[in-house]
């Protein structure tokens, strides 16, 4: 071996050691799940085939709102390969599920496997056909004869909120499924007396999550034991297990819900679906395995959608640019049902909860109504409400800056909660713990050399180019504990998480959690946390998640909770197992505990070469009786629950640079920067990936993605040709700057960050586009902003019509 190559080997060994030791948390460990997922060896639900498995196809409503007068299934039942055809009538033994809540002014709609008596959106499942293949099942769908009596379509949420509107749920007596109000100080009076007021009617259109893997459910049933296992592409298998236990009257011990590899969720897989209820019911009724795989058309028609809010908002400032009051009236179009378990409230209420953002605004008044329409339900979507609240507040900030003749960054820094002002309670009642608000904004600006960028903009403008710079700042609550449930008053606990760590008799480490991975790399990051606190090696730790049987209460992954909560539980359990390792080794090596160290999967005596691998240790503990006194033997296991009680804030500043073609109005993103604070980083590479993906979705929300229902309630964006999502060519290079302000309120100092990219990006892009066209006197109040919308705004302003911009004159 040459000297150089010896050196190289030594260096790479050193690098390897550095990667696994001494700090595993904080290292950019390559995702351990990727070799499997990238070589086609992942196991998604649809990859799973059970013996004798049957396939479901649903006949879905083609009416927006109608009474079901009759269903004739006789021809379909006789069709080739058809085993059964079920309607709601056949499912009478299945209990409806309700997303209940203790909240006032809230109505919970029943959720059933198939539409009963009435359909409330196009795409709602009405009949389930079960056949030997999906092809045959779809052929039989055409033989069903359903008679409908059409009712008034309920499409416009503002009309739907009026007492005169047709009602989707007569028993509710109104389409307003929920209303809430937050009030601090006297916003109206402060606005009336303010020097500067900016306002607008903001519209963020409906969006759909479009996970790469469509929803898929496979129920396997063992008649002899009355045991049902549902394999589901879900973010929340534990919540589904609990809901199905109620729906099917089955104890959890006979009902297991497993989410194997899941190909993206973004919130769209975080709720209970009618198809899940149906597949479980059908497997039990027929006594065999039943599978349903959504196709893309079904996904676009019936997976929970996001956003869809109208926000009338006004921001008032004093002459120096200090914000004094914010007022908002929000209407959320929540669709036809109140989704389980989150309720119809989740998305619109988060809008009013988070509108004040990272700013000090003494007077706040926010009102929200969630209004039912004959569209699919909205549910949690990456960011939940905050993409809209951030869009509104950050646009208002820019409008105010323009009005005051101030730089938008300077205005924000002036109004932000300063580093010495934490904790701070905003007008909606949320308390921000210490978090890097100003630091992130300063870092994003430094990354682009902001003054220089503005100078470049001036040059570009002088040359007739439409060049815009947009910043957006936000704050969110993540890793929420038991005292602040994710949606208030719900009968589920989102605030704790359990880790169950065991070293078995072969010395292998298994760590089981109640969370679920949808692609975000939890298998790696949780293994890193366990390895760090156990003294193990990342590659030796098998992480189990997405299985309702793994821990007693396994809710899943949503709300940027998994790193904080599961990471915390992992820490507690790993530390306890490590203590047990040391106690056992102390007997076996006849050494005082304080002279032992555990690392790299072995326990050794400091300063000697005496060591036991986990395997040797485990054999001694479990198999080689007598080596440890009987009364000192302990299983090398620990189950710990972590509750951050309140949770912690997280923040980022996004900065977008756009250039618009002044002839064609094509909008091109030139650059994107995110400076984020997610506290202590577990794996910087994975955080970067989460930011990149989130920003890409935010760009989609800002420029491309919109679910459109026409006046008849038909979804006219029912394929990916019409519902367009950004591809690699539409996403610019993204710089990510990490400000690691460790949270003081969570174990390890972690903050949640899975959703953040999608929260900041739409506002940053909107501000950049608005900045680019500011010389034309146009405001951007509606997202997504397409070339077509830009064209219309420009034409309107040319014709001296009101371009519906919100500046007071």
């Amino acid at each position: 071996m040459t000297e150089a190559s010896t050196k190289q080997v030594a260096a790479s060994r050193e690098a390897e050691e550095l990667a696994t030791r001494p700090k595993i948390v904080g290292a950019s460990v390559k995702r351990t799940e990727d070799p499997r997922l990238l070589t086609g060896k992942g196991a998604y639900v649809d990859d799973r085939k059970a013996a004798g498995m049957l396939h479901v196809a649903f006949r879905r409503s083609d009416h927006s709102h109608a009474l079901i007068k009759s269903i004739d299934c006789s021809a379909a039942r006789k069709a080739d390969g058809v085993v059964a055809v079920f309607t709601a009538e056949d499912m009478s033994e299945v209990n409806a599920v309700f997303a209940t809540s203790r909240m006032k002014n809230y109505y919970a709609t029943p959720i059933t496997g198939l539409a009963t008596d009435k359909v409330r959106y196009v795409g709602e499942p009405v009949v389930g056909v079960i056949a030997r293949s999906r092809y045959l099942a779809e052929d039989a769908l055409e033989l069903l004869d359903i008679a409908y009596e059409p009712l008034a379509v309920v499409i416009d949420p503002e009309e739907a909120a009026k007492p005169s509107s047709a009602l989707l749920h007569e028993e509710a007596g109104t389409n307003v499924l929920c209303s809430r109000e937050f009030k601090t100080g006297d916003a109206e009076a402060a606005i009336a007396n303010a020097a500067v007021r900016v306002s607008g009617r903001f519209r963020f259109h409906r969006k759909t999550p479009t996970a790469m893997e469509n929803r898929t459910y496979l129920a396997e049933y063992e008649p002899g034991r009355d045991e049902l296992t549902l394999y589901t592409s879900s973010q929340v298998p534990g919540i589904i297990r609990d809901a199905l236990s109620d729906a099917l009257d089955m104890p959890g011990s006979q009902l297991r819900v497993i989410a194997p590899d899941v190909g993206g969720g973004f919130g769209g897989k975080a709720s209970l679906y009618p198809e899940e209820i149906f597949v479980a019911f059908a497997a039990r009724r027929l006594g065999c395995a039943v599978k349903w795989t959504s196709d893309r058309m079904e996904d676009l028609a019936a997976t929970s959608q996001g956003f869809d809010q109208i926000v009338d908002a006004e921001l008032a400032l004093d002459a120096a640019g200090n914000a004094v009051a914010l007022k908002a009236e929000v209407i959320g179009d929540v669709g036809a049902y109140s989704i389980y378990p989150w309720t119809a409230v989740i998305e619109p209420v988060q809008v009013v909860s988070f509108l004040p953002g990272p700013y000090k605004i003494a007077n706040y008044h926010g009102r929200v109504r969630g209004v039912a329409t004959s569209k699919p339900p909205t549910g949690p979507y990456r960011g939940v409400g905050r993409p809209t609240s951030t869009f509104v507040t950050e646009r208002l900030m820019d409008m105010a800056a323009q009005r005051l003749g101030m730089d938008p960054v300077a205005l924000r820094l002036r109004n932000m909660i300063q580093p010495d002002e934490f904790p701070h309670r905003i007008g909606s009642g949320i308390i921000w713990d210490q978090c890097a608000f100003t630091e992130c904004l300063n870092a994003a600006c430094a990354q682009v050399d902001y003054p220089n960028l503005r100078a470049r903009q001036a040059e570009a403008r002088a040359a007739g180019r439409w060049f815009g710079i947009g910043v957006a700042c936000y704050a969110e609550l993540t890793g929420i504990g038991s005292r602040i449930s994710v949606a208030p008053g719900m009968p589920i606990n989102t605030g704790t998480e359990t880790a169950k760590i065991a070293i078995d008799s072969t010395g292998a480490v298994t760590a089981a959690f109640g969370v679920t991975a949808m692609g975000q790399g939890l298998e790696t990051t949780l293994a890193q946390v366990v390895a760090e606190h156990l003294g193990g090696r990342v590659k030796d730790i098998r992480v189990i998640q997405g299985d309702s049987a793994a821990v007693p209460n396994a809710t899943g992954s949503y709300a940027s909770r998994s790193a904080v909560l599961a990471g915390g539980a992992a820490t507690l359990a790993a530390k306890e197992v490590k203590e047990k390792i040391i106690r056992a080794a102390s007997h076996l090596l006849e050494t005082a505990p304080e002279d032992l160290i555990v690392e790299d999967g072995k326990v050794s005596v400091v300063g000697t070469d005496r060591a036991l691998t986990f395997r040797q240790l485990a054999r001694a503990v479990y198999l080689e009786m007598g080596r440890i006194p009987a009364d000192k033997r302990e299983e090398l296991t620990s189950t710990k629950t972590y509750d951050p009680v309140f949770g912690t804030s997280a923040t980022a500043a996004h900065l977008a640079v756009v250039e618009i073609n002044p002839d064609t109005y094509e909008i091109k993103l030139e650059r994107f920067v995110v400076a984020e604070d997610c506290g202590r980083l577990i794996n910087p590479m994975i955080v970067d990936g989460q930011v990149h993906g989130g920003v890409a979705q935010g760009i989609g929300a800002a420029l491309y993605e919109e679910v459109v229902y026409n006046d008849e309630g038909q979804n006219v964006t029912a394929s990916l040709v019409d519902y367009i999502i950004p591809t690699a060519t539409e996403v610019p290079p993204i710089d990510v700057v990490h400000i690691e302000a460790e949270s003081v309120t969570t174990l390890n100092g972690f903050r949640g960050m899975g959703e953040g990219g999608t929260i900041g990006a739409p506002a940053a892009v909107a501000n950049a586009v608005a900045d680019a066209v500011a010389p034309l006197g146009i405001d951007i109040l509606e997202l997504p902003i397409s070339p077509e919308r830009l064209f219309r705004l420009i034409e309107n302003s040319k014709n001296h019509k009101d371009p519906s911009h919100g500046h007071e004159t």
Partner: protein
Amino acid sequence: MKPPPFDYFAADCIEAAIQALADAGGDGKIIAGGQSLMPMLNFRLLRPSILIDINRIPDLAYVRDDGDEIRIGPLTRHRILETSDLIAKQFPVLHEAMGYVAHLAIRNRGTIGGSLSHADPAAELPMMSLLLDARLEVQSNAGRRTIEARDFFLGALTTALEDGDMLVEVRLPKLREETGWAFEEVARRSGDFALASVAVIMDSDGDWVSDIRIGMMGVGETPMRATEAENILTGQRYSEAAVAATVDAIRAAVEPNTDLHASADYRRHLVGILAQQALAKAWDRSRRASR
């Protein structure tokens, strides 16, 4: 999204394919790249009784120099046209346009015969065939005939092909080497069907436009030639005023649709902008070539 039942026949020669088409009595469908047909089957928008697969017919994919013409086989994949040196040399405008057809994976499968027969109003190849005065060779049990591109596109997804017809060759008359050209397109994302597109080929004689062809798409039920605009500019001295008059004529002539992605007004605006850009580029190229 599963297709209704159909029979399947893999033809091994053109004659077998057209015989199968005839046997199906108007109920059969040729499948080439499947990039347009398969989605239509999966949406159950089409219910052919039989699919006649032409992918195994030998020698249907080629680009050949044949004196005054370039001959292209119907099964020639988009990607082959895009990367063909012969096309790049003879028809740089076509070479450029091919880069705008869908995404690479689709270009690897999709064929010129399929694209022309499918006749999407916003597809590049139908527009190119119109611009380049293509002659489409069609064969059925009744024999072989030639349809001029200008007579081929009858409406959205509607062509002059009759039941039993198979498109068997596309012939493109060569252009002069000095001919100027330009292709301009706006789509929502790279690879999407065009919102509007304009292509120009132009010959100049000093300061004069001696010959010009303007093709457009996305602004009507079929791809179009801007005949009136061509007449305005032919034999004219190239000038800003002449270009403006041409653009006005184009905007007046088109009757675009409003759909989700663009209104008729925006498309009309776009087609004018693109025409302006395309005319300038084509003029520039023709002048540079003849210098």
